[in-house]
């Protein structure tokens, strides 16, 4: 039994890969088969993620006694071969990917996956990249999975074509290519000094470095950190983010909500394993605060909902980076909780923008290239008619009644989530962050903690103002509005995510306890290191 369960670790990578490859053999006209296949793949990933969540918890000690599962690919020994490692944080992130991926796919099936450009295979590849990045225990392998998810995201962000989309997409690609090169330089420097890329092995070697080697190693880690910060959307490396996120189609934006979190996850993972430096942490604090402040100002200035949601991504990243920069260990559980809430919030909100965009006859912000009559060279090249997402052409699902009431309710829920008001978990998460920041210091909170708390509260107020303004314009203005037809398939995922958020808010106690245990294991990397390096001897014992 245990021998089979061990292989669960590699499945979150293999399942979407096989599914993406399988798409090649199913032509577009066999839509039912394609949709069934991708939904099955996402559902299997969800089941696997939940199983891993259970297996790494305290409740199941029979397979991985310390809650860290190590899978040596090809059975090559740990520091030399590439290992996949699942611990509590990885399991939480995998579950998050699976939940967001599954709901987004259901939403996309309603109208967003029309033929012309491959959606489903690319979507599976982005899930594979995300899962792989959260699982890998090797720095270069992390680079490879970053590239997988970025390459898939390039395809997704360009969906729908049009001049503005192509221009913003190109900016996005150029910035991320440069970030990838920085990543490579960092990895090469670390390898050149420490002679290993396995994260667990690095932890031991980094501690023994001194003098010139130490300086070069720190430089390598810092360059790596810059690459992570670009992905995480930290100021001043985030000017690509609103442009790329706000022009992406709604389901694409929903899955992109996870991508900035990959950068944060890498910072958390590499930072705790290598033992983060004080100066680097201080830099994170100020970068986070700068991200938060610029994001808040931008939210107040945003006129269109999709842009506002993109800026709210920046605000949440700013809060997370600054909280991590405070260097309070008790805060890490709250950071992970807020990260989960903000991913769910942003995904829900992006899906909602896809529906509210249709409520207005003359929406000034509907971009001209979404005009179905304007032919685009990409579609002409493929010899297909350009599909319009704003045009009611297919018949999937049935229209639901009381559309405006539903949209309004969802909008209010999302607003409460973003701003952090009860009864939504956004409130619990922000409260945990603030109380953690202000309480945990013996001789009273430091100036940084006060600064952090004040900025977080102010940004909440600003989000409330901006969202109320947009909400009034969207739902209360009588002029130029038509009630759209919504499909159950579109409405259900949004409602499901909101209900999930509500559950998270109600069951905040157990979730927070679990995440605190996650944070504790993150701050004791010894267990992780031991488990990875011990995998070798353990394996040899099992062999006959």
């Amino acid at each position: 039994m245990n021998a089979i369960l061990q292989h669960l670790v590699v499945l979150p990578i293999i399942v979407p890969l096989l599914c993406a490859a399988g798409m090649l053999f199913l032509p577009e006209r066999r839509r039912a088969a394609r949709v069934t296949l991708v939904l099955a793949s996402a559902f299997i990933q969800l089941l696997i993620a939940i199983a891993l969540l259970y297996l790494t918890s305290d409740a199941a000690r029979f397979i991985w006694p310390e809650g860290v599962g190590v899978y040596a690919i090809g059975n090559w020994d740990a520091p030399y071969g590439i290992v996949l490692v699942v611990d509590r944080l990885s399991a939480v992130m995998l579950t998050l990917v699976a939940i967001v991926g599954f709901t987004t796919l259901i939403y996309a099936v309603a109208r967003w996956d029309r033929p012309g450009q491959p959606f489903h295979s690319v979507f599976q590849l982005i899930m594979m990249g995300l899962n792989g990045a959260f699982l890998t225990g090797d720095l270069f392998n992390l680079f490879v999975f970053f590239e997988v998810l970025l390459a898939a995201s390039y395809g997704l962000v360009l969906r729908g074509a049009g001049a503005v989309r192509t221009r913003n997409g190109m900016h996005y690609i150029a910035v991320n290519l440069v970030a990838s090169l920085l990543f490579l330089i960092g990895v090469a420097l670390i390898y050149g000094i420490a002679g290993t890329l396995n994260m667990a092995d690095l932890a031991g070697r980094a501690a023994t470095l001194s003098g010139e080697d130490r300086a070069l190693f720190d430089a390598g880690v810092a360059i790596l950190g810059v690459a992570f910060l670009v992905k995480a959307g930290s100021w001043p490396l985030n000017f690509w983010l609103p442009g790329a996120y706000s022009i992406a189609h709604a389901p694409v934006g929903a899955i992109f909500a996870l991508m900035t979190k990959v950068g944060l996850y890498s910072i958390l993972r590499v930072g705790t394993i290598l033992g983060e430096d004080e100066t680097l942490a201080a830099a994170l604090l100020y970068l986070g605060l700068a991200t938060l402040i610029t994001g808040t100002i931008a939210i107040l200035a945003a006129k269109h909902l999709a842009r506002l949601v993109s800026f709210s991504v920046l605000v949440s990243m700013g809060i997370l980076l600054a909280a991590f920069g405070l260097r309070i260990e008790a805060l890490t559980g709250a950071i992970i909780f807020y990260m989960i809430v903000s991913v769910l919030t942003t995904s829900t909100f992006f899906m909602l923008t896809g529906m509210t965009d249709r409520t207005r006859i003359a929406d000034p912000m509907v971009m001209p290239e979404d005009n179905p009559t304007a032919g685009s060279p990409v579609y002409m090249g493929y010899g297909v008619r350009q599909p319009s997402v704003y045009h009611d052409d297919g018949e999937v699902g049935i229209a639901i009644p009381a559309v405006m009431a539903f949209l309004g309710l969802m909008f209010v829920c999302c607003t409460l989530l973003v701003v952090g008001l009860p009864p939504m978990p956004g409130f619990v998460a922000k409260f945990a962050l603030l109380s953690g920041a202000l309480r945990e210091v013996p001789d009273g909170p430091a100036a940084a903690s006060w600064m952090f708390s004040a900025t977080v509260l102010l940004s909440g107020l600003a989000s409330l103002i901006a969202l109320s303004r947009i909400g009034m314009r969207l739902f209360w203005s009588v002029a130029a509005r038509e009630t759209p037809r919504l499909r159950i398939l579109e409405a259900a995922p949004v409602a499901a995510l909101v209900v999930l958020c509500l559950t998270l808010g109600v069951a905040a106690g157990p979730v927070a306890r679990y995440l605190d245990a996650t944070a504790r294991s993150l701050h004791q990397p010894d267990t992780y290191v031991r488990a990875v390096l011990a995998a070798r001897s353990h394996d040899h014992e099992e062999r006959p």
Partner: protein
Amino acid sequence: MEIVYAVVIGILAGSGVWLILRPRTFQVLLGLMLLSYAVNLFIFGMGRLVLHKAPVIAGSGPVDPAMYADPVPQALVLTAIVIGFATTALFLVVLIALRGLTGTDHVDGQEPAE
């Protein structure tokens, strides 16, 4: 040899950064390519420069690592080249699409106002 190698990397990286900051899409593409060449050479150099030594360890029995070049950076470079090649090709397609859609090769999709 190390000096020449370092100077080559420096020139490639410097030209690459300069080109990336230029306003024309093709210049940006060339800049990305030059920069990725520099990075690939840099990764290769991180395995230390050695001459006349094979990167793989053949046969069984005890081996002297000093007799061989480090194979890991070579494998890393290979991966980085493949990934860089694919992303460059993608960038080229986007570049041409943008040129076709806007009629200009400026990175912002429009000529700057005079």
